[in-house]
């Protein structure tokens, strides 16, 4: 099957070269759940290098194993085969070096905005003085623009505000890598667009290594340096990487008219649609292995007998 990747536009703008050394390497990772007949292979043979200082986006359809991949990276799950290496050390469990922002916020409902952020700050920066930690919390509350709501509890906040708290909580840990697991997919379209710009702004300030998992191609192009599509599962694997050659700082409204942006969006979308079609065809092929033979019958007459017709 030919894929529309080939006619993607050549880069016209000089790319800010991300340093080539990988911070995290995923080497031949596979992961599945269940045993025997019910076994479901989610990811198979994933290879990926996350370079220091780059913003990488993984785009895929829902159900293709994106969340499993984040959990593996975070260390909440261990791969069945292969390994994930960070700074020459194999990842065996969760660590404060890899901050994760969950799709459903995961805020603790009994703590206030400040309490939620302070929980991680107090834990990660144990050796700091009380005042230092408090200032640190304030700084990040301010960064996500929630100074007016520090005393509120999560249930008193809107979805967008909750995700800001979640983001602040993770950023405040000062992780080496930021893992964003579909952080905006539970939000409405307008809030989502506001939050995208916010994340973009924060990232431009911090320039942190960041991995975004999303199902929104526009979002990926807007935020990322590189986009890697995740082919639909089961046995999901990664597709070829697309480099996003758009100058930073990026402006969302301006990008809508950028030819480069449009071409890239088409290319990524076409690729994803094509691979999904292919996986569906493959599935149909495999399920057609033993087709049911229909009997070759012809009705004698299509007319009902007169007596019953009325």
């Amino acid at each position, binding site marked *: 099957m030919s894929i529309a990747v080939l006619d993607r536009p050549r880069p016209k703008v000089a790319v800010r070269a991300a340093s080539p050394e990988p911070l995290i390497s995923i080497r031949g990772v596979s992961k599945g759940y269940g045993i025997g007949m019910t076994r479901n292979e989610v990811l198979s043979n994933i290879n990926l290098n996350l370079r220091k200082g780059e913003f990488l986006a993984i785009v895929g359809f829902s159900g293709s194993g994106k969340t499993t991949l984040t959990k593996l990276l975070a260390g909440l799950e261990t791969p069945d085969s292969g390994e994930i290496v960070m700074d020459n050390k194999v990842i065996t469990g*969760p660590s404060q070096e890899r*901050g994760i922002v*969950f799709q*459903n916020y*995961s805020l*603790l*409902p*009994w703590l206030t905005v400040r309490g939620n952020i302070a929980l991680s700050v107090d*834990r990660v920066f144990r050796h700091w003085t009380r005042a230092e930690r408090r200032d640190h919390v304030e700084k990040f509350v301010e960064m996500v623009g929630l100074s007016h709501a520090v005393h509120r509890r999560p*249930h008193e906040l809107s979805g967008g505000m909750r995700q800001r708290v979640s983001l602040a909580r993770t950023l405040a840990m000062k992780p080496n890598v930021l893992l964003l697991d579909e952080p905006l997919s539970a939000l409405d379209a307008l809030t989502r667009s506001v939050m995208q710009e916010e994340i973009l702004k924060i990232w431009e300030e911090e320039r942190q290594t960041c991995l975004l998992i999303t199902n929104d191609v526009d979002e990926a192009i807007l935020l990322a340096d590189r986009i890697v599509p995740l082919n639909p599962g089961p046995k999901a694997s990664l597709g070829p990487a697309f480099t996003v050659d758009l100058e930073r700082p990026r402006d969302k409204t301006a990008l809508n008219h950028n030819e480069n942006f449009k071409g890239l969006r088409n290319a990524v979308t076409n690729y994803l649609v094509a691979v999904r079609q292919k996986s569906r065809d493959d599935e149909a092929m495999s399920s057609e292995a033993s087709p049911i033979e229909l009997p070759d019958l012809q009705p004698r007459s299509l007319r009902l007998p007169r007596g019953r017709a009325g």
Partner: protein
Amino acid sequence: MNWRGAALRFCKVTGLPILEPFVRLIAGEDRNEQFKGIAKFVLVPVVAVGLFLGFWSFSARHVVANSVKLPGPKDTFTEGMRLFSAHFEQKRIDAQKTREKKIEALQLMQNAKKSEQAAAAADGAEKEKLLANAATLKKRALSAANYQASSSPTFVDQIFNSLQTVTFGFVIATLIAVPIGVLCGMSPWFNAAITPLIQVFKPVSPLAWLPLATLVILSMSSGGSQWLPIAFLTSGITVCLCSLWPTLVNTTLGVSSVDKDYMNVAKVLKLSWTQQLFKIVLPASLPLMFAGMRISLGVGWMVLIAADMLAQNPGLGKFVWDEYQNNNEISFARIAFSVIVIGLIGLFLDRIMIFMRNLVSFGNPQAA
């Protein structure tokens, strides 16, 4: 937050939706809507209670056994008021008696002093006699000063005694059930070990426990003390044994069903076991824990009446039993009155627990 929001929140957290339309009416919200609310939460219940009272007084006129009539609402109410006035009368008499005794004590002390002064002046056998006299007077003064009214407990005293007993049993039950429940919730192995015990003892009636509880208490204490009489302990422990289970089961459920996302947060932060317990697991399971404690307190209050009857602990159960033994019209009116009092106290205890549960279930308070 303005006063209206605060008041509405109060209605919600205390589980008193009955107040909500009034608050909104005062705040000047849509009047028709609020009157509908008042009709629903006030008018209709009042009508229902009225119908019940009518049915009660109607049947009171027709139910007669052994020449004793079923007391009607009016008799019951009159007798109830009499119980309260008897209580206050008794308290007044007791207070007066105590005051008189105090005065007597002062008098005696003065006499003793006089006697001592006389003794200082006198000598020989006279002095001995006066000193002995002073000593006796002092002793009598002391006993008069320490006078405790020893009238038999009134209805109100019995209510308070019942409340003390149920609190005693409930607090002990909570202190036992919550830690065990947390252990069960955190360790499936421990849970597996405990489950058969829970399953077997949970459905046992208090009346079956009571003789065993008495035996254990008798073996542990010799005759009881002034503060913890045997009857009180027996009732309390029986209440405890019956109100353990709902708290235990709910705590186990609450702890074992803590949201996976919260646990992920704990894992990413690498919280230690104790931090995980106190910062994530316990706060997350508090709503279910309190829901269990609410059921426990309800069960405890119900069990207490039966335990009081059997253990002869001077509480409401004993009151009902004693009046039943009297077997006359007045005593049945008293029983009917105490039934209503028991119900109202049970309702009040339930509301307290709802309030406490709503305080710890953020963003999701429930009226019942």
